[in-house]
């Protein structure tokens, strides 16, 4: 967690290339096009699958080609990556469906 700049929040909207439902972290590989039309792939770290599961996420929650928006704390080293704080559909709908245990 020390590798992320927790003083800075960045919002990204892009297309999911891959959702890695893996331990010790899940990752979203998100293709993001900037104002100049250049596409960059971001590596977005999440918690372990068990934490996402408890919040109603499943491997099928994000499919390749899905458009999403995320807010992240970016990597301190300036590389295209960060830790996910929130993830929604582009119109702001929360991803994952919370289920009671």
């Amino acid at each position, binding site marked *: 967690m020390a590798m992320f700049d927790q003083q800075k929040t960045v919002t990204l909207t892009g297309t999911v290339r891959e959702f890695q439902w*893996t331990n010790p972290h899940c990752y979203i590989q998100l293709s993001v096009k900037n104002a100049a039309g250049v596409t960059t792939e971001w590596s977005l*770290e*999440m918690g372990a699958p068990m934490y996402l599961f408890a*919040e109603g996420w499943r491997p099928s929650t994000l499919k390749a080609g899905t458009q999403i928006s995320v807010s992240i704390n970016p990597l301190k080293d300036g590389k295209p990556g960060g830790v996910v704080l929130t993830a929604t559909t582009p119109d702001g709908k929360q991803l994952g469906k919370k289920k009671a245990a």
Partner: protein
Amino acid sequence: MRRVAALMAAGLLVAMAGPVVAQTKSPAARADVFRKLPNWSGYWLTENDETSIGGLSQRAIEAKATGQSGPRAVMSLYGFGAPWNDEGKRRQAEKAKAGGRKAEGWGYPIMMNGAAPIQFMITPEEVLIINAYRDVRHVYTDGRKHPDPDDIWPTVWGDSIGHWEGDTLVIDTIQVKNPNYYFHGAPPLSEEAHYVERIRLVAPGKIENDVTIIDPVTLTGPWKAKVTYQPAKGFDRMISIEYDNDRTGSDEAGQNTIEPATGRK
């Protein structure tokens, strides 16, 4: 000559019998023992360590926002409150420098104080403690002792025996391989450390674990810590997945970063 042969045969039988364990009970007697044991079924999580999709609990996020340590806020076995001696302080400093290195799992003792749910499977013969990373502790409650010194070796889960004092499970654990090499958040104790836990349900939905650790190599005296567990919400089963995609690496400047994605099957 015949007597010597008989003694040798008896010795062979003893050697083949393996470790001494409690006498086999009849099904009815076993059921009677089972009936008296507590029921801690379900999934349990360290109190206040319910974790967001980003991987931190709300309490850890709040602590970080005020410049405090996130683990200090929720993990009493991380090592902050321990009476470290000079060797322990040296190891803690080394651990702090290597904070972001790759892990293999959690192991003991940090699996008892992590954000990964744990499960207690209580039987008359042993208690199994299992977490979501499939770290498993076998706590034998059948009256056996720890294996002899030449029949035991250190592992990241250690060797545990236990007994019941009323509704309290008392666990004695030795031979824990320095857990810090396995999981970077673990306390950097030595393999001479001796752990005693007293675990009991103190109220519905609340289990307490009083942990005492003695380690002549890294501590000046007994380290006493308390961990409280609450039901893990959102779990209808244990969520287990292989531990094979730790992408925390280092950049050219030696700073932790996310390694590029590699093609996955």
